[in-house]
C-alpha cells in the first residue's frame, strides 16, 4: 500500500510538470459545383510536453471524426525525445523536419511524406511525422553555422489525393490490376539527408543553405507490367508501381535588404533543387527521370498595410526520349492583413503560367476570444480540365471553420 502511494505520488508529480496544450477544430466545406457537403471534420489535437534541464519529450495525439464517412480516427503525431548536448541537439522519434527557405513551394522540403488525401488541407498539417534520428550541430555559440543530419530508417510514401480529389487514371491497354510496392525495412533502403546553413552580415542579413538528400520519390511510378496469371502471358495484365531512388541536391538563401528611398526592409528568398535519378537520359520508361526546380520569393510589409509575398517557381522535367523536356512556370501571391487585433484577411493566388490554370483562396479569420477563432474562406480552381489546377474545377468550395486552442 505504501509502495502504491509512492508510485501515485511520483506519477502525480510527473504529471504536474507535463505541459498540456491542444487544439479542437471543426471544419465544413460545401462544393460550389453541386452544393454538396464536401467536408465535415472535427479534430482534436493534444500536445504533451515534458521539459528537463538538458532534454525534452514531446508527443501529439490526434483524434478525428469524419462526419461524411462516419468514421472516427486516431493517430500518433510527433512523438520524440530531444537531448541538448554541448554543441548538438539530438532528437529521436516520430517527427517533422522542415528544410529549405521558401514556404509551401519549397523543393528541398521533402523529408516528410505528405497526406494529400485532401489537397486543400492546411499545408503544415499535411506533413506526416515519421520515425527518424535528427541531429543538429552548432559549432559556434551564436549559432551562425549549423549542420544537420537526418536518418529515416524506413521510407514512408505520401498519401495521394482521394475520393473526389483523386485525379483521373487511365491504365494501359490490357491492364486490369495495379499493385504498389514499397521499399522494405532494409537498412539499405533508408533515407538520409545532410544540411549545412550559415548566416552572414551582408546587407541587412544573409542566410545560405545547402542540402543533400538520398531518398525516394514520394509517389510511385510504373515499374513493369506483368501477366496476372504468370502462366498466361496473353491474359489480363497487372501494372506494378514502385518508388524510385533519387538524390536531391539543393541550395537556398534568404537576403534582407532595403532600396533607399523606395522600399525599406525586403526579404528575397531563393531555393533550387536538382534530382538525380538512375535514368539521367530518360531512356527507360520505367525509371523516373531527373528534374530541377527553382523558386524565388520576395516579401514586403507595406506601412499600415498587408504583408505580401510574391513567388516565382520554375520546374524542368526530363522527358522520356524522344519527347521534349517540359518546363512549368508558376506565379504566386500571398497576402495577409491584420485589419485589427481580431480580424485578419488572408489571400493566396497560385497561377500556372504554362497551362493557364490556377487556385484562388481568400479567407477571413476572426478571433472571438483568446484561443477561439473562426474562419470563412473560398477555394476557387480554374483552368482547362486536364491542367494542374483545372483538374479540380468541380472541387471549388466554400469553407467554414471554428478553432479552439488551449
Amino acid at each position, binding site marked *: 500500500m505504501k509502495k502504491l502511494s509512492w508510485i501515485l505520488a511520483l506519477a502525480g508529480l510527473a504529471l504536474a510538470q507535463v505541459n498540456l496544450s491542444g487544439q479542437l477544430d471543426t471544419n465544413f466545406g460545401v462544393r460550389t459545383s453541386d452544393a454538396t457537403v464536401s467536408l465535415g471534420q472535427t479534430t482534436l489535437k493534444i500536445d504533451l510536453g515534458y521539459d528537463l534541464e538538458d532534454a525534452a519529450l514531446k508527443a501529439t495525439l490526434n483524434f478525428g471524426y469524419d462526419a461524411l464517412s462516419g468514421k472516427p480516427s486516431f493517430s500518433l503525431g510527433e512523438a520524440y525525445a530531444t537531448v541538448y548536448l554541448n554543441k548538438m541537439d539530438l532528437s529521436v522519434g516520430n517527427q517533422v523536419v522542415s528544410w529549405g527557405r521558401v514556404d509551401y513551394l519549397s523543393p528541398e522540403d521533402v523529408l516528410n511524406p505528405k497526406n494529400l488525401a485532401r489537397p486543400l488541407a492546411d499545408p503544415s498539417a499535411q506533413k506526416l511525422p515519421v520515425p527518424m534520428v535528427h541531429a543538429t550541430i552548432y559549432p559556434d555559440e*551564436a549559432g551562425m553555422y549549423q549542420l544537420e543530419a537526418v536518418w529515416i530508417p524506413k521510407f514512408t510514401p505520401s498519401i495521394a489525393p482521394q475520393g473526389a480529389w483523386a485525379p483521373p487514371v487511365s491504365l494501359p491497354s490490357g491492364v486490369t490490376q495495379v499493385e504498389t510496392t514499397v521499399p522494405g525495412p532494409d537498412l539499405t533502403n533508408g533515407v538520409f539527408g545532410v544540411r549545412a546553413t550559415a548566416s552572414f552580415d551582408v546587407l541587412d542579413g544573409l542566410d545560405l543553405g545547402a542540402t543533400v538528400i538520398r531518398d525516394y520519390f514520394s509517389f510511385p511510378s510504373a515499374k513493369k507490367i506483368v501477366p496476372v496469371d504468370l502462366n498466361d502471358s496473353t491474359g489480363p495484365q497487372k501494372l506494378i508501381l514502385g518508388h524510385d531512388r533519387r538524390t536531391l541536391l539543393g541550395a537556398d538563401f534568404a537576403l534582407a535588404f532595403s532600396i533607399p528611398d523606395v522600399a525599406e526592409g525586403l526579404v528575397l528568398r531563393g531555393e533550387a533543387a536538382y534530382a538525380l535519378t538512375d535514368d539521367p537520359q530518360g531512356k527507360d520508361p520505367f525509371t523516373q527521370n531527373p528534374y530541377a526546380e527553382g523558386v524565388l520569393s520576395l516579401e514586403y510589409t507595406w506601412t499600415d498595410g498587408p504583408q505580401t509575398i510574391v513567388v516565382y517557381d520554375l520546374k524542368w522535367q526530363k522527358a522520356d526520349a524522344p519527347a521534349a523536356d517540359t518546363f512549368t512556370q508558376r506565379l504566386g501571391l500571398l497576402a495577409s492583413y491584420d485589419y485589427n487585433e481580431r480580424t485578419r484577411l488572408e489571400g493566396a493566388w497560385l497561377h500556372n503560367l504554362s497551362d493557364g490554370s490556377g487556385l484562388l483562396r481568400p479567407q477571413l479569420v476572426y478571433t472571438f476570444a483568446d484561443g477561439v477563432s473562426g474562419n470563412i474562406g473560398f477555394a476557387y480552381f480554374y483552368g482547362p480540365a486536364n491542367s494542374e489546377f483545372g483538374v479540380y474545377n468541380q472541387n471549388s468550395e466554400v469553407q467554414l471553420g471554428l478553432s479552439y486552442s488551449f
Partner: protein
Amino acid sequence: MRRVLASLGLIGVLSLALAVSGEEVMKKVDARPNPSAMHGVMVMQLVNKQGKTLTRKIELWTKKVGDEEKMLIKFLAPADVKGTAFLALKKGGKEEMKLYLPALKRIRRIAGSQKKGSFMGSDFTYDDISNLGGMKIEDYNHKLLKTEEGPEGKVFVVESTPKPGVEASYSKLIVWVPEATYVPTKIEFYKKGKLYKVLQSSKIESFADGKYLIPTYLVMENVKTKHKTILEQQDLEIDIEIPDSVFSERFMKR
C-alpha cells in the same frame, strides 16, 4: 497690447531657454542608467472600443553590450501562438530579425518592413517594443515646448523630431519628462503631423537599490480607433547574466 504679449511670450521662451533646453532634458533622460540585461514576462491586454479584451503573454530577454542590442521574445499565450519566438539583433545601425513558427517548424528571416507593423495585434509596433529601453536621442532634434506642474512636480514637455536622413516610424514625438525622475511618463506619437498614439507609463518601480527606475505599467492608445493596449511587466530580473546562446536560433526552437 499685442507687443506686450509678444514680449511676455519672448521672455517666457528666453527664461525656458535659459533654464534648460530640450536637448539637455533628453540627455538627462538618456543618461539615466539602463539595465544591461533584462528578463521578465509581459502581459498584454488589447482593449477595443467596446471594452472587449484579448490577452497576450510573452517572455522577454534583452541584453545590451556597447552598440550591440539583443532581444528574444517567446510567446506564451494565447495557445494558438504559443512557442512562436522572435529574435532581433541590432548592431552598428543594422538590425536583423528572425521568427520561429512552430507550426511550420522553420526559422524565417523576416523583412525589416515588419518593424512598423503591429506587434501581435497590439497598438505597439515591433519597433516600439524594441525601443522600450529608450530611443536613440542623437537621431532626434529636441525642443522644449513648455513646463507643467504635475503630481510629481515640475514636468518638461519636449518635442523630438527625427533628424534628416534618419529612418523613423514617427514624424514627431512629444515627451513628458518629470524633473524628479527623468523617466518619461507620457509620449505622444505623431504621423504626418497628426497625433496617432499616446503612451502613458506608470507604476515606476525601483530596481538594483534604486539604480534603475522602470515603468512596469504602460498604456498605449490609438487616438483614431480608440483601441488601447495595456502592457504590464512581471517578474522582472535586472542585470542578470544572460548567455549569448539565448539570442540564437537554437534557443528559439527550444
